[in-house]
């Protein structure tokens, strides 16, 4: 698979990741890796943030949309 963003810009780059939201293939330059906090507990126990985080890969477009930018 090729990077969708690069193809749109007229380049051909191998994809190394897929956006978890829209599914587009992404090269290393266009893949945005985020880490989500993971919580456990909640009523009737206090919620605690666990050390482990959940990684996710996003394309620039979905990243901007999810951040509300």
């Amino acid at each position, binding site marked *: 698979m090729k990077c969708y963003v690069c193809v749109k810009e007229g380049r051909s780059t191998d994809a190394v990741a897929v956006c978890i939201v829209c599914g587009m293939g992404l090269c290393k330059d266009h893949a945005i890796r985020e880490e989500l906090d993971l919580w456990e507990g909640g*009523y*009737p*126990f*206090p919620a605690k943030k666990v050390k482990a985080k959940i990684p996710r890969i996003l394309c620039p477009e979905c990243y901007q949309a999810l951040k509300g930018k």
Partner: protein
Amino acid sequence: MSDLAKRCIAELAGTALLVYFGAGAAAITLMIARGTDTGTPFNIGIGALGGLGDWFAIGMAFAIVIAAVIYSMGRVSGAHINPAVTVALFATKRFPAGDAGAYIVAQLVGGAIGSLLFAASAGMEAVMVGGLGATAPFPGIGYGQAILAEAIGTFVLMLVIMGIAVDKKAPQGFAGLIIGLTVGGVITTTGNIAGASLNTARTFGPYLVDSLLGGPDLWVYFPIYIIGPIIGAVIAAFFYDYLAGEGSATA
């Protein structure tokens, strides 16, 4: 500030809100009904205006504030706002002993602060006529009957907490609503037996502030609201674990 201190402040605030709005609704009902012919000695004023509807209204005041506290404080402290719930979670090894002790102290102090704030808001008539919504067995109800009614009511409350919140397989997001409505329903039915406290801190607050401000002295009944709720909650927690634990149909 330590994590435990913050959680204790949340328990204190939550219990204060419970007592202010819940017990406060009982006090206001007595103040409104003052001078009304109740017709029967079993009716001390709550019920003089709308029969069981008076208890339903008080139950709904509790239901709404319990739901509000669970949804707002549930992730912070767990929103037990009830020593019986804390003891039951401790007894089933779900809650550490040190935290449980601190929570219970915070809940008792919160109950007293809630009552004090209600007295400050509503005036001395709330103390002298409404007794700040303090619970006691109704005329004709014995000590043992009152303990039984409190134990059964708290059994239902804790059973619902276990099924809707403690059990990880329970649907998410309904705990505050269902637990609040459960308390409201229990109060509607058993309020006119022993006040349907279901909660040692909810009774402790009005008792303490009534004593401080010259209101009714009801301390002789306080053991009812320690023994009944704690027995009911602990039995419910173990009962649920037995029914839904390893090897059961839902495990």
